[in-house]
């Protein structure tokens, strides 16, 4: 009944072959099996967005995805945003704007913001708020987070 199932996921560009239990979520596999602890566990009901990752180019709450469902997909976590030891411009903008207070929600915020800018390169404030509506910040750093996203969009033109 609870036998493990072999799956393959490309995580941050690297193909990973895993044996997962059917009741383990993508979030658990990322954190516990792959030690990618940037993705956070928080509400576990799809409201806070702390566990946001990108799966085949679309952001999802990884706490609501069974690991077996991710079989054959390409997943990007917050660890996949920076490259060659350099921060992604969005990450740098979060730092510059003071968008991270306690920091717990930031990996999810970054993944949602990254997704937003890929779909809407020049978002309005309302579009940023809507794009990040699935990500809660209990420090209420929304203004700085919004500023960081807008600044990244603006800087991309220069």
């Amino acid at each position, binding site marked *: *009944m*609870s*036998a493990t*199932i072999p799956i393959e996921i490309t995580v941050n560009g690297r193909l990973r072959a895993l044996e997962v*239990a*059917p*009741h*383990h*979520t993508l979030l658990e596999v990322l954190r516990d099996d792959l030690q990618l602890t940037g993705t956070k566990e928080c509400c*576990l*009901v*799809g*409201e806070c*967005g702390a566990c*946001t990752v990108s799966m085949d180019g*679309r*952001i*999802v*709450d990884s*706490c*609501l*995805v*069974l690991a*077996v*469902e991710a079989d054959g997909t390409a997943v990007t976590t917050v660890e996949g945003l920076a490259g060659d030891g350099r921060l992604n411009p969005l990450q740098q903008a979060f730092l510059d704007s003071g968008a991270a207070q306690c920091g717990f929600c930031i990996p999810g915020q970054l993944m*949602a913001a990254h*997704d*937003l800018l890929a779909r809407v390169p020049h978002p309005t404030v309302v579009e940023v*708020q*809507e*794009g990040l*509506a*699935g*990500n809660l910040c209990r420090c209420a750093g929304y203004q700085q987070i919004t500023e960081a996203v807008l600044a990244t969009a603006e800087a991309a033109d220069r």
Partner: protein
Amino acid sequence: MHTFSYARPGTLAEAVALLDAYGPDARLLAGGTDLVIRLRDGTLRPSVVIDLKRIAELRPAIREDAGWLTISATTVMTDVAADARVRRHFPALVEAAAVVGSVQIRNRATLAGNVCNASPAADTAPPLLVYGAEVVAAGPAGTRPIPIAEFFVRSGETTLARGELVAAIELPVPRRRMGAVHLRRTRRRGHDLASVTLCCGVDEAGVTRLAYGSVGPRPVLVVDESGVLADRAAPEAAKTAILERMFADASPSPRSMRASPEYRLAMLRVLGRRALRIAIERLAAGE
């Protein structure tokens, strides 16, 4: 989460056979945005979870054929809202699909799942009722259409029989020009469940269809064929009398956390009138 076995059928027949064999011990998985929560909190303890996402017959996600648009069971809200055919023929469904949950939720949650979950607050239910959608139920004896108005029983309960699953939602492309809108009231903007969710459609023959949810055990459809509501010149008193009869089926729960019955009934009237006005404007503008 307790353990279960996982099945990933490749055909509809395999899925139906599994569902028939396991009965209530099986749960269907499409987007999982409701299911996984309840697997985790233990309110559901199936012995098998049947994932529908690799079923060949459920592709393509959306197709148009002989005056009907068919949205397969595994089609997510993001794709419903982005589809050009849905946008052209069913704009109020687009408006509803675009406010379900968050981006993350809409990328996983399916239209069929929203319907099968049978939440009275399901945002896509009112437009599906207004547009006269049918649920395609697949079971051991074959498939049958269920008019959406006969589908909902109460929260979590539908008229699906044992061994049946929803293979698709079908929408008849309106033959008459129609103006329609979806509106809702939530505690906060963004990601929240509706305190009132509502859709109004007015067609060129003067028929007004109004559907509302989150104000009773199931979403309700009411129709005015008198032409009075659709007539901008009709006396206000006559409209009010008809609207009051249309709202008579609302019976909001006094135990809900989201809003009091008094507030919901007041907002139902406000949103109902607003939606009627917008639907008439859209019909006139040809939107």
